[in-house]
């Protein structure tokens, strides 16, 4: 088993080196050899899968712009690509995509919203599709065979559903857990499947994008505070059992605390997933920088090792995000029988 693994990683590193010799021959600078890392981590208006020599295998994505004066406009991102350099930069209908892959208007005074189907939005649809396929498939089993042991997808989904219900929702939220279990389940499966699909080669870094994590964290924030009961708000604005002068300090801290919770959620998921991707890509980048067989073998081994760890991280981060969401909701809906 281990020998097979070594042989496989050696083969992989040889293949990767062969590619590097071809694809990196044109670019001499070390900076160019690692620029693909940030390119992978960030969002883009096109989905770039691979570069074979001078051929770019790219999926152009729709660019959708909404502006007050011109309404909705639809373009293909290929309209913005320079046919010579294969990079964005061409002006089209008064817009262009800059070097940071951001859509800009030629007329700088115009304001617009870029709601393009970017790489991450496409990835979002993919994650939603996979999640729906798995969960609806699982739920079909329960309709067809009530009161029977789970089979197929249901036997894969059921333990996780039971885990989220019994280990995350119930102990952290308490008697009102049933109301929030569907939200926590959706959160867990979305993040988990997003993390796992993000690890596939060529996939987008969806759950490592701060816009995605901040949105999820804000949803938890709204769910928490809309469901906050009297005791929760009293605790925030007039913490019981605290003398008046201290309230001047405590209350601002409590109010800041409301916002640090979603901030922590945002940053934790974003950092954990993005860092994992950067580490993996950095090890691959090392091969191109050193252009040595030894580094190739070592790097490939490390990449496989980190990938396995990332599988773990994908699950842990989904669990942690769900767990903390449950704890925040639990704190907001708990009936306080005791004084602090």
């Amino acid at each position: 088993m281990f020998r097979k693994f070594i042989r496989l990683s050696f083969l992989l590193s040889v293949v990767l080196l062969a590619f590097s010799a071809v694809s990196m021959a044109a670019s001499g600078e070390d900076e160019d050899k690692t620029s693909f890392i940030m390119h992978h981590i960030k969002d883009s208006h096109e989905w770039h899968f691979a570069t074979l020599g001078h051929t770019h295998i790219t999926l152009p994505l729709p660019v959708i712009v909404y502006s007050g004066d011109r309404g909705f406009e639809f373009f293909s991102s290929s309209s913005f690509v320079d046919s010579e350099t294969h990079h964005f930069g061409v002006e089209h209908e008064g817009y262009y995509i800059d070097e940071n892959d951001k859509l800009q208007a030629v007329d700088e005074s115009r304001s617009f919203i870029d709601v393009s189907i970017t790489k991450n939005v496409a990835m979002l649809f993919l994650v939603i599709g996979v999640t729906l396929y798995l969960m609806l498939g699982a739920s079909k089993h329960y309709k067809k065979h009530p009161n029977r042991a789970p089979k197929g997808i249901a036997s894969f989904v059921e333990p996780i559903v039971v885990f989220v219900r019994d280990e995350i929702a119930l102990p952290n939220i308490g008697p009102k857990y049933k109301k929030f279990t569907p939200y926590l389940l959706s959160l867990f499966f979305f993040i988990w499947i997003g993390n796992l699909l993000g690890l596939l080669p060529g996939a987008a870094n969806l759950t490592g994008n701060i816009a995605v994590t901040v949105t999820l964290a804000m949803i938890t924030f709204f769910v928490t505070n809309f469901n906050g009961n009297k005791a929760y708000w009293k605790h925030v604005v007039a913490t019981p059992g605290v003398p008046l002068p201290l309230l001047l300090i405590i209350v601002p801290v409590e109010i800041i605390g409301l916002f640090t919770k979603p901030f922590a959620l945002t940053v934790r998921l974003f950092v954990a997933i993005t860092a994992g991707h950067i580490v993996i890509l950095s090890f691959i980048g090392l091969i191109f920088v050193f252009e040595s067989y030894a580094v190739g073998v070592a790097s490939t081994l490390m990449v496989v090792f980190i990938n396995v760890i990332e599988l773990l991280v994908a699950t842990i981060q989904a669990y942690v995000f769900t767990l903390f969401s449950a704890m925040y909701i639990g704190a907001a809906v708990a009936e306080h029988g005791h004084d602090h």
Partner: protein
Amino acid sequence: MDLISPDLGLIIWQTVGFAILFFLLAKFAWNPILAALEERDGAIEASLNEAEKAKMEMANLVAENEKLLQEARIERDEILKSANEYAAKLMEDAKGEAANAGAKMIEDAKAVIETEKQAALMDVKIQVAEMSLLIAEKLMRQNLSSEPAQKKLVEEFVKDIKLN
């Protein structure tokens, strides 16, 4: 698109996408699955309780059977015992009766023998008397002239008697 500045377009898509995902999953996946799980938990619990109950009933039944068997055994023993006693009594009675009957038969036989004996004796007496009379008559009839004739006659008579 910078790394740590959230992009508005993606936020909008993520909000819409996650909302749709949540509503579809909640309606078509989580609610049916959670309801089914709860129902199954209930069914399993009920089945277990029923099994426990059935087990208890079974145990009760077995105990009852045992009790019935025990009772039957005791009854059988009693019946056997009384039957034995009755048989013994019957035998005892029969023995007593048989003994009585035997004794009575012996008694009767003895009485019959006595009667027969008496009758025979009477007969003998009568015959002796008749013979005596006969002898006396014959003696009387013949003239007892001579001594030898008398003797001869007596002997003759005696012979006659023996023949009888």
